[in-house]
């Protein structure tokens, strides 16, 4: 693991076009030495899981600001399970009400980073988890 770069997929599920956060985080992770793949907009849950498996990533970072996380995040976790993937850490971010977070954690999303998060905290979090 020592010389291997951490691989991260930053994904925009659903129809939401707000990609400022996703792109800023992609760049911050890259600057922190990670290998980052960014999907671009309008990805279905199936496409995201497929890309994650193909690219052999350690982490999936999901970004949604439209409120569709309540539907799309669980769907992605479901497909990961169906595909027997259990070694990818999934984190999320965007406009996500605090009261939704416990439910998202219950279905296996490791962390949710809401507006105002520091990219350095996200880098630190990922480095600690992927060891």
């Amino acid at each position, binding site marked *: 693991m020592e010389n291997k770069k951490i691989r991260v997929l930053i994904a925009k599920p*659903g129809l939401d076009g*707000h990609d400022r956060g996703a*792109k*800023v985080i992609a*760049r911050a992770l890259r600057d922190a030495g990670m290998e980052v793949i960014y999907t671009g907009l309008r990805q279905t849950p199936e496409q995201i899981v497929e890309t994650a498996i193909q690219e052999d990533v350690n982490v999936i970072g999901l970004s949604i600001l439209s409120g569709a996380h309540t539907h799309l995040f669980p769907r992605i976790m479901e497909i990961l399970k169906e595909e027997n993937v259990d070694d990818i850490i999934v984190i999320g971010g965007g*406009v996500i009400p605090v009261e939704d977070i416990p439910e998202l954690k219950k279905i296996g999303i490791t962390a949710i980073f809401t507006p105002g998060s520091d990219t350095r905290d996200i880098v630190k979090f990922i480095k600690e988890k992927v060891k």
Partner: protein
Amino acid sequence: MFDKEEINKIKKQKREWEKNTLNKTLDRFPERKELFVTGSGKEIERLYCPENIPELDYDKDLNFPGQYPYTRGVQPTMYRGRFWTMRQYAGFGTAEESNQRYKYLLEQGQTGLSVAFDLPTQIGYDSDHNMSLGEVGKVGVAIDSLKDMELLFSGIPLDKVSTSMTINAPASVLLAMYIAVAEKQGVTPDKLNGTIQNDILKEYIARGTYIFPPKPSMRLITNIFEFCFKEMPRWNTISISGYHIREAGSTAIQEVAFTLADGIAYVDAAIKIGLKVDDFAPRLSFFFNAHNDLLEEVAKFRAARRLWAKIMKERFGAKNKKSLMLRFHTQTAGCTLTAQQPDNNIVRVTIQALSAVLGGTQSLHTNSRDEALALPAEKSVRIALRTQQVIAYESGVTETVDPLAGSYYIEKLTNEIEKQASEYIEKIDNLGGVSYAIEKGFIQQEIQNSAYKYQKNIEENSQVVVGVNKFKIKEGAPKGLLRVNPKVGRQQVEKLAKLKSERNNGKVKGNLELLKKAANTEINLMPIILECVKSYATLGEICDVLRNIFGEYKESVKL
């Protein structure tokens, strides 16, 4: 505005002041920072004096309001005549729920409507499409057919209100639905006031709700220009938007540059299909962001107005005064709202709204304090509207036209923003125009670089955000957030099924067939889209016909 001698005299006096007064103070009390910069990262001097604007020519650069180059405003009396239109962007859930919100806002003294559509509607999918799952009714109202549109405006007389619709890729379809609803109320298209956003270029750049590739998209847009010139003389056919470019992270200078560059592309496209510039240019409108740096924002609005007037006159030879006037809507900057201590956002919004008013906006949306957390609750929306009303009725800034004109700093900044935006536009021209600059990812990357820099500045504390990286408190989860009824998606799907079983499906099929034929030719598509809509063909059905012929846009992503 000053003669050379006068300027030299002031210059000399300034040196003396620096030597005898300033330096003593600096020795005892050093300044807070080595370098002071605007939101765009440009250095700000300690003090602005006549020497900073030696070339300023009153007639040429400022002139009177309502006169070229419109730096001081597009009307002679501005807010002494009439306030800006107070227009809160709203819409969520079903058409019935949004209709209630509109009626509430009108009762509260709002003067124009602004419709937010959900993402499936904006991307031309019906509520029962696979891609719509989880998105129906979320960020705006779900509209599948004329049926929904009838409910949305039920009890609202369309000859009495002006309506702005944030719709881009399928703008023709929603405009057609609006015309059809008005017709049912007995209001003819020539009586309708309002705006469709209809700005596809910034969707490719920053907002993401595109459907078709640039070429057919530009055709749909110029079709609307032509149709409205003939049928809807009061309608703003496009709202060329810098708002989302700024939200995506651009600076104020980039916002002006990329927005006006998009404007140039639309004018070029319309002229190319044979329209005369003075026939369509008077109905072009703009949409800008009001960010935190109050004085830079005021200068930005003034610079944009002057630069657009020059472009229309010099580049396109427009003669009609109205073609030269940059009229604009403003929304306060959503990206500046914090999830932490959300009530502080009311203050941010006030400052931003003030910049729009001091900059001479024609209409304004003020954000609600809770928008970094969820869609705004009714009480938050009321405070946001009240903010505008306090500025209008209590602050006094409305009582004279362009009150900040003549300020050495404001005039210097206005000049700088105009100059730097012009340089960007020249660069884009040299790259081969906006479409090419988008295809190559140039504009997107410029914006991404600025966004990244902004974030780094916050994280390194060189930019303080109150409540986020300074003056933090421990706080509990916010209460009273709006939640969209989770049943909306199912209700829409049921409504859609019912519609499809009740309408004249033969007629729908026939109209869609005609649309297909028309799309394969060069003729204006508005009339046939109007027929499709009236027969209750759905938005998704109409867009699918066009998707099959025009193809779909694929974004070019560069990090």
